[in-house]
């Protein structure tokens, strides 16, 4: 998908979801979000961030759960974007409680990440983080 089409699809998806009602969110709307997480994590992160920023009414029921479900896969494939989304959700108080399993897995990932970086090291040692 070209960048132009990607932005258009993002705008279209967000607009359709925001314009819809709860019966649409629970059916086709949910499908859009679930499919995007399954097929294009980067797109799903952008869509989730957009929906949250737009104050979408279905956020708690349909927006947040897939984020928590796919957090760890997203941290592996698009760490910078996913961390930004999670950090922003915490700043905006849209993510205040998580379950013990999510917490444990995310802490494990963060620990591995922080300890792997040699904070006084050379560029070779950190080049693997350019994602």
């Amino acid at each position, binding site marked *: 998908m070209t960048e132009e089409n990607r932005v258009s699809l993002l705008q279209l998806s967000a607009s359709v979801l925001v314009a819809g009602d709860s019966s649409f969110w629970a059916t086709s709307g949910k499908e859009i979000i679930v499919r995007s997480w399954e097929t294009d994590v980067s797109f799903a992160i952008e869509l989730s961030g957009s929906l949250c920023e737009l104050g979408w009414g279905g956020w708690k029921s349909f927006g947040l759960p897939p984020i928590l479900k796919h957090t760890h896969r997203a941290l592996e494939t698009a*760490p*910078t974007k996913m*961390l*930004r989304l*999670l*950090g922003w959700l*915490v*700043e905006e108080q849209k*993510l205040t409680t*998580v379950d013990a399993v999510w*917490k444990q897995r*995310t*802490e494990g990932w*963060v*620990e591995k*990440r*922080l*300890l792997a*970086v*040699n*904070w*006084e*090291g*050379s*560029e070779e040692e*950190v*080049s693997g*983080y*350019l994602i």
Partner: protein
Amino acid sequence: MRFLQNRTVLALQIGQLCDILTLSPLLPSVSDMLGHIVQGVAATDEPLEDSQRTPYNASLVLGMCLKSFSNQARPKKLGLPSLELADVCQRWGWSECAVDALASLATSRLVWSMSPFWFHG
């Protein structure tokens, strides 16, 4: 040893660290790892020269980590010997970021777990 050389990588690293620190209210164990980063960064040679080369420098990382420590609701042990904190004061006293974080650290409840003489080292 100079601080990380590749500035693009470094900007990305610092961005990620900033978001990770934001997540620390949800992930308490993040604070336990800050001592590791502070120790690594504090060992940077020529920190002033490093800061003059780019805004993405060691003092920024040091300040972010120490500030995050001071913001904890339940401060834990810093994980650094008091002498090293004194060293941080001496070596990074020129950095607004580092001094601001050290001031926050000193005025937080952490102060009670430090020796009153730590800053004389």
